[in-house]
Each structure stands twice: as C-alpha cells, then as structure tokens.
C-alpha cells in the first residue's frame, strides 16, 4: 500500500494535476452553488474537457475535484439561501439555514467545511484500506460472476429507489439497457435496432444521454418555475470562527457519520442523499433531550451530521467504481463513461494495470478536501456572488454548454437533435416521477453486461453457467431478493395498517 501511495503522491503532486484539483474544486463550487444544477450535470458538462486532455489520471482528478466542489457548493447555497443545489445537501439546510438566519452564516459555513473535510478525508482513508482488499477478491471473478454482479448492482439501485418506486426504477434500468443495444456491439459485427439510420450505427453517445437526462431537464425546470428557489438572503457572511465547545460537540458526530456515510456510499444506489438524511436522523435520535430541541433551529450537530455523511458517502461510492468497475450512482456512472472513453477500464485490474490512476485519485481526494477547506472557505463570500447572476443570462448559457458538450463529444450536429429529443422525453419522465439515474447507469453498464453475458454463454455453451458456478447463482438469487423484498415489505406494512395480522 505504501508503494502505491508513493506512486499516487508522485502523480498527484505534479504541477498540472495540482492545478486540475484546484480548478476542479473551484469550478465545482461555483456551479454547484447555482440552485438546480447538481453534480451530475456539472460533471456531464465537464466531461468533454476532461476527455480531450487525453491523460486518464488528470481527467479523473479534475472530475473528482469537480464532484467534491459541487457537493460543497450545494451545501453553501443550502445554508445561505435554503435552496439546495443538490439532493444530497437538502438535509444540510434543516439546520444550516436557521443558523444563517440568526446571523451565524459564517459559522455555519465553517462547520460545514470542517465536517465535509473530515468526512471526505476519513472516507478516503477507508477507501485506501478497503479498495485493495475488495479488488483482490474481485480478481477471482469470471465473466459469469461479473455478469451476476452487475445484475446485483442494477437491482440494488432499483431496490433502494424508495417505496412505490421500485418498478419504475426497474423499468428505467431496462430502458437504459435497451438503449445500450442500439448500434454495433463489440461481439457481433452487425448493426442492431438502427432503423437504417447511419447516425445510429455507433449507438447513442453517452455524454448526449447524460446531458439529456440531467442537465437539460434541470434547466427546463428552472425555466418553467423561476421562483423554485426562495431568494431571501441568509444574511452577511462574517465571523468564520467556531468555539472550542462547538468543536468538541461536533467531533463525535463527525467520527460516527464518516463511518456510517462511507458504508452507505459503498452500497449501490444508496449514495449521498440517503446517507445525509440517515445521518441527520441518527444523530437526532441519539442526542440528549436538550440538544434534540435544538435540531431544526440551528444546531451545530444537526449541520455537521449530514455534511460529514454526504462527503463520506461520495468517497464511498468510488469503491465499487474503482474495484469492480460497477458504478453505484449516477455520478460515478458518468465517471465510468469518461474513464472508458480514456481507454482505462476500471475494475480489479485497475490497481495492477494503471496503479498511477488509482492512487492518484486517492491522493487527489486528500488534496481536494484540503483545498476546499483552505481555499474555498475564505473565498466563499466572493463565490456567493455567482448567485446574483440574473437567470435571463444564466439559463441560455447552461443550455449552450449542454449543447456544446454533446457536440464536442461526437462532432456531429445530429447528436444535438438527439439531445433535445431525449431531453424532452426525460423531462416528461421527470414530471411523472420516474427516476432518471437508473436509466443512465443501465445504459453505461449495458454494453459490459451483454459482453460478459455473451462470454459466459459461449464458455458454457448455454446458460449452464448459472447453476454450475455457485457464486454466480448466489449473486443472482441475491439480485432477485433485492428486487422482491421492498414490495413484499410494503405489502406487509399495508396489511398491518389495514388491521390484518401477519404471519410472524
């Protein structure tokens, strides 16, 4: 591990990569602060830039920096304006905004920054310990296990979608997989489902789809409902210091939430949003009675808990991506797409084939967190000025960057029409409360899923691999249980609510 760490330090501490981290964090904070633009949109917009750099470590470092910056920027707008830019920071506004209203905006930002820093750093430490362990296990996997593992990942994403959402999330995953089969596959030299159109020969571009799923609907929602974000100012930002007493009270919270957040982040489909809400709820439940009354009215603990948890979860979500090559969230799915475009295939062999990429990312996590603390915090009063840009100027620019991202990726004007078409479909799906992240994850995993499935079919001359390999069978059974369990539990809860006694 030490050797790897040295490689990482060597790569990450080059001038170019340091600039990438700093630039990524600043850009992320800047855009993440705008209400309505989440980390997924920002990363999708940044991908063409990252890909055209051609250096995988630098690109991943840049994108990871943008990711942290966006989460940090999202919490800033939650605290200052009660307008979370990101779902993962909604819980931060419960206590952050009341603090800002009491005139303690500076203190709230400092608590948020310290909590994020600790969450991110402890998360990176855990990642460094667990990722090599997991990837040495993953090296034993054959293509049939990979296939099964991806099925587990996809069904877990559907299973964690929430009550009443499981089938919708499943439908979106299948739709993503269906979209992935369009075009020429790697294993068969035969165009499929192209409807005779030359432009579809190479399939849909993943940047186009990412933009259409996230950036475009979000921008359209901003247009449709301009006053979605309440704009009463949370007060002037001053006095960034916190007292020793406050530091002492948040220390255990940070410790607990870093661990909890990290492990929630590792689970596919869970991620920062669930981690932050759960972190908030857990900390409120174990707080003393007098502290419990403070929650929701500007408690320091209530702010530190979700902030620590969401940053730790962001780091945790890198574990399945880097060790198994399976993204657990929309954001990591976009990162996976970028890595594949750069000719790096994440997975257990990443640490052997491209150790510099793996370790540079981990080292850059430390640097990124450090930069957010020392560079962004003092700059926040100035960066917050971005919130003053009138939306009449902002929205055309957001739309332009989505178009540009799709165009640069493919250099093809048809891609822009596809973008608008998919964007309209995605907005309709969003109206009807269909989750969009599973679609993109399905789309990105689709190719790999089919390749591994086909390879195992060829090796075992049929579907015999399902029962001849116990691990595959076990994983597939797990996938089925994951999908069925939520609806079974919901049914039982309904039965209980209706006064019917259940079996146990």
């Amino acid at each position: 591990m030490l050797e790897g760490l040295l490689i990482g330090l060597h790569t990450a501490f080059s001038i170019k990569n340091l600039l990438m981290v700093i630039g990524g964090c600043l850009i992320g904070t800047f855009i993440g602060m705008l209400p309505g633009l989440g980390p997924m949109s920002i990363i999708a917009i940044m991908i063409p830039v990252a890909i055209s750099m051609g250096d995988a470590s630098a690109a991943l470092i840049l994108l990871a920096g943008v990711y942290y910056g966006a989460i940090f920027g999202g919490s800033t707008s939650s605290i200052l304006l009660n307008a979370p830019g990101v779902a993962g920071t909604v819980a931060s506004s419960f206590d952050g905004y009341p603090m800002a209203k009491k005139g303690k905006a500076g203190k709230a930002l400092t608590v948020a920054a310290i909590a994020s820093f600790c969450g991110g750093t402890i998360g990176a430490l855990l990642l460094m310990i667990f990722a090599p362990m997991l990837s040495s296990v993953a090296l034993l996997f054959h293509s049939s296990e990979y296939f099964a593992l991806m099925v587990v990942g996809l069904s877990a994403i559907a299973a964690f979608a929430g009550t009443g959402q499981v089938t919708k999330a499943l439908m979106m995953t299948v739709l993503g997989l269906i979209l992935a089969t369009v075009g020429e596959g790697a294993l068969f030299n035969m165009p499929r489902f192209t409807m005779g159109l030359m432009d579809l020969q190479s399939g849909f571009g993943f940047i186009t789809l990412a933009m259409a799923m996230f950036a475009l609907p979000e921008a359209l929602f901003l247009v449709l409902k301009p006053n979605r974000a309440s704009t009463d100012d949370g007060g002037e930002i001053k006095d960034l210091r916190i007292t020793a007493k406050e530091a002492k009270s948040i220390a255990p919270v940070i410790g607990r939430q870093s661990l909890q957040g990290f492990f929630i982040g590792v689970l596919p489909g869970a991620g920062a949003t669930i981690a932050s809400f759960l972190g908030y709820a857990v900390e409120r439940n174990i707080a003393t009675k007098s502290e419990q009354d403070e929650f929701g009215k500007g408690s320091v603990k209530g702010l530190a808990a979700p902030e620590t948890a969401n940053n730790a979860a962001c780091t945790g979500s890198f574990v399945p991506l880097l060790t198994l090559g399976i993204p657990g969230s929309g954001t990591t799915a976009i990162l996976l797409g970028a890595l594949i475009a750069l000719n790096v295939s994440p997975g257990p062999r990443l640490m052997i084939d491209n150790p510099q990429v793996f370790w540079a990312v981990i080292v850059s996590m430390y640097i990124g967190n450090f930069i957010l603390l020392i560079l962004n915090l003092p700059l926040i009063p100035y960066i917050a000025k971005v919130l003053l840009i009138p939306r009449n100027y902002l929205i055309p620019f957001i739309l332009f960057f989505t178009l540009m991202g799709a165009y640069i990726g493919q250099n093809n004007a048809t891609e822009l029409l596809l973008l608008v078409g998919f964007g309209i479909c995605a907005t309709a799906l969003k109206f009807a409360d269909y989750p969009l992240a599973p679609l993109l994850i399905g789309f990105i995993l689709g190719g790999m899923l089919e390749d591994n499935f086909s390879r195992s079919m060829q090796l075992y001359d049929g579907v015999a691999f399902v029962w001849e390999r116990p691990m595959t069978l076990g994983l597939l059974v797990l996938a089925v249980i994951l999908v069925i369990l939520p609806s079974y539990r919901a049914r039982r809860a309904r039965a209980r609510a209706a006064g019917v006694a259940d079996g146990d």
Partner: protein
Amino acid sequence: MALDRWIALVLLGICLIYGYTAWFTMDGSLAPFMRRNPIWPSTFPKVLSVLGIVASMIILLGFEKAEPKTPDIDYRKLGEYKLGQAIGLLVLMVAYALCLRPLGFLFSTAAFLVLGSFILGERKWHIMIPVAVTATMIVWYLVQQVLGIFLRPLPSMFGV
C-alpha cells in the same frame, strides 16, 4: 389515468416493437455459421424485451402502490408555469443544431445566446449583445486553440 401510467403505456409499446424486432425479424439476416453459436445478437434483446414488458405492465396496472407526494412541478397545472418560454428555448436549441454547420459557430452561438435571453424576457440589448459576443469568442478560442477541437467558425460559403 395519471401521467406515469400513460408513460408506462408508451414504454410498453416501445418494448413490444423492440421485442417484435428481437424475436421475429432480427434473426433473418443471421449468417448460417453464426446460428451454431449459443448466443445470437438477438439473445440479450429478447431477455430485455420480456423484462421491459413485465415491468411496464406492473406500472400500467398499478400493482405497486405509491404514496402520493407533492412533486416539484405539478404537470396537471403546466399552463401556470412558463411553458411558452420553455418551448421557445427548445425550438431555439433545434434551430441551433440545424444552423451550427451552415452558418458557422460564431454567428450561431452569439445569436443563440442573445435570443435565449430574449425569450426569457431580457430586453437590455446593450448588455446582451456584448456578453454573448465575448462569451462566444472565449469559448471558440478555448475549444479550438486549447482543446484542439475543430469548430467551423464562419458560414460554410466562406470555405473553411
């Protein structure tokens, strides 16, 4: 019927067409030697079409109950939102896609940015035009010179 079930109906239609192609028409063009393979190009799509049909039927028939929640934007009251502006911007994006090659990047982009703010209700031309032109120039410079990706700057009749 609520919007999510209408969408499920559309998705069911898509899955049926997809499934029909996968099950009945696709294998016709398969080379004879490939028929001996345990896996055909249509195998995976066949599985997907079945899964898709099952999932869309479950949504369509309302087997899974969800608690009603207040969405961010209620589509039933779409008319109360700024629908005109949203449609205007979408049309503008399509126009941009069609004009990007023939009219060149510089003109199309500047026009897109100015018209975009115009649709949103901005009328301060003395700010809109300089902002749009400057931003276009900066983006063109960054993409063309720094990233090295070719963008045709001028209308196609000028050569380049």
